[in-house]
């Protein structure tokens, strides 16, 4: 896959190794520490905590998909990780991620981690909901969730490891009202989709996760089921006011997705009915994340 991504040569290994030592979000670190003190830690709660943290999920899937565990099937969910590796091992992995510390709310890039998390969680929940509600062919709800959770991971990487350049990109995006990924290309020379995809590719995640991350802003007609749910969820999250930092006008759905979901963006949102509970859940999580780091 080398050469597939437009990314400076020296950057790829640097970023990949940096992510290994990246701390996770405060709320999940706190919950993991609580849960791990309980010998009867309810397994589903452990899964839920990891699933709500893009950093922990990323790290868990990285180990499981590594060459050390050549599973016949690539691992794409936290539940799968628990089935294959066993609960106690996953718990101890989460504990080792938690031991690194917590992702600071403030970073030199001025990137709002809370908003990033809120956008990732709402996109994940919406992508899963779309797959279920519209029974989208080829869109496994769990895959949609993971894709939503991880689609913007490249942004955290920029914020953590290239804060100065990323700060400029964020500013440019706001000043000129252009999508953040375009501003990233100008200021960094690559964008968060390329970096996110490069990392999961390097870690031997399933190739469809890589291409989902890489193409999540492209409205091409040949979308897979998961890509369709991810694209729509990403835009719905923005339209509902849960965009990540940077310029965040929602894109309209391309014609193929209008057909698939039976309407334009607002009509799809309308058809989903009352999703306030789903959105509140994400908000509570992202909010608590900020408080517990204070």
């Amino acid at each position: 896959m080398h050469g597939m991504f437009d990314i400076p040569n020296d950057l790829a290994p640097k970023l990949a190794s940096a992510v290994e030592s990246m701390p996770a979000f405060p709320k999940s670190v706190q919950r993991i520490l609580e849960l791990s003190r309980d010998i009867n830690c309810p397994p589903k709660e452990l899964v839920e905590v990891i699933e709500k943290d893009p950093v922990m999920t990323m790290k868990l899937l990285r180990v499981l998909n590594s060459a050390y565990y050549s599973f016949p099937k690539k691992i794409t969910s936290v539940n799968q990780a628990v089935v294959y590796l066993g609960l106690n091992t996953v718990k101890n992995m989460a504990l080792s991620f938690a031991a690194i510390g917590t992702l600071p709310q403030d970073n030199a890039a001025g990137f709002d981690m809370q908003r990033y998390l809120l956008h990732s969680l709402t996109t994940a929940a919406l992508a899963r909901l779309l797959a279920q509600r519209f029974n989208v062919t080829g869109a496994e709800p769990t895959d949609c969730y993971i894709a939503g959770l991880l689609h913007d991971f490249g942004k955290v990487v920029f914020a953590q490891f290239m804060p100065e350049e990323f700060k400029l990109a964020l500013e440019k995006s706001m000043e000129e009202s252009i999508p953040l990924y375009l501003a990233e290309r100008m200021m960094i020379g690559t964008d968060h989709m390329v970096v996110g995809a490069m990392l999961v590719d390097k870690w031997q995640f399933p190739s469809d996760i890589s291409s989902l991350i890489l193409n999540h802003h492209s409205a091409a007609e040949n979308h897979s089921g998961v890509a369709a749910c991810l694209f729509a969820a990403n835009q719905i999250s923005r339209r509902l006011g849960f965009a990540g930092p940077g310029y965040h006008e929602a894109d309209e759905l391309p014609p193929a997705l209008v057909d698939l979901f039976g309407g334009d963006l607002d009509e799809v949102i309308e058809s989903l009915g009352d999703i306030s509970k789903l959105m509140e859940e994400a908000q509570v999580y992202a909010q608590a994340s900020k408080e517990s780091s204070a």
Partner: protein
Amino acid sequence: MKVKFWGVRGSISAPGPDTVRYGGNTTCIEVRTAEDDLIVLDGGTGIFPLAQSLLKSLPVTAHIFITHSHWDHIQGLPFFLPIFIPGNKIFLYAAFDPITGAGPERIMNVQMQYSFFPVREAEMKSRIEYVVAMPHETISVGEARVTPFMLNHPVVNLGYRVESNGKSLFFTGDHEPYANIYAPGDEGHEEYSRLIKEQHASLVEAVRGVDVLISDSAYTVEEFPAKKGWGHGTFDGSIELAIAAGVKVLYCTHHEPTRSDDDLERAFAAALERYSGLLNGLDVRLAREGEELEF
């Protein structure tokens, strides 16, 4: 293929008058392939008497496959005497541990530290080679083939399928049957249920048609609910796996350290009773220290 049980006890060695028939040593199984290559499954305390039996025929090449790194499966390794004698060649295979980021070398390094053992790992005189065993990646030992399969335990545990000259054996190491972590009706229940069904089915395929299955049967079905999550199976679970996979002979092992020989036989008989008429030719036995079989 020849098999000899050198240790069949689980958790901790349990010597004494009550365990004298089935034995008190922890897990160790000697396998001789068709070409007489030596494969050792686990290095519990049973590996010490095995080591003594090998001293007559030095130098030896031993392929030791560790199912997992809990004490009862590794604590005999520093007493595997051939490691101290020049000319011997030892291969130690085990899984990569995602928590420590280490492979088989750590099993020796940690045990052979100053505080715990008089000889350091670096002072072993044999040639020892550490090999990371990966699920589904077959390892050749002469003409024999050993294929690891990941099972369910509180630490990464590999079961091993050994095949030699048309004969085959599967050893689970420690394994608890998969169970749903969600209650019926929970959001994740259906997905999880599908995942564990798939995983169990692939275990059945990994065990499919072996001549001998040696399986963790630590608990009775009555005891199991209180031990859920501890990573062990039941007599009944082992029998069901053996039937599903079309196994010829099942050995129940990892005997509870507190179970006397009489209690062990009673628990075993009760399980067999439940499967009376359902075994379809399956021969079910209790693993006994010192027992040998050739097939």
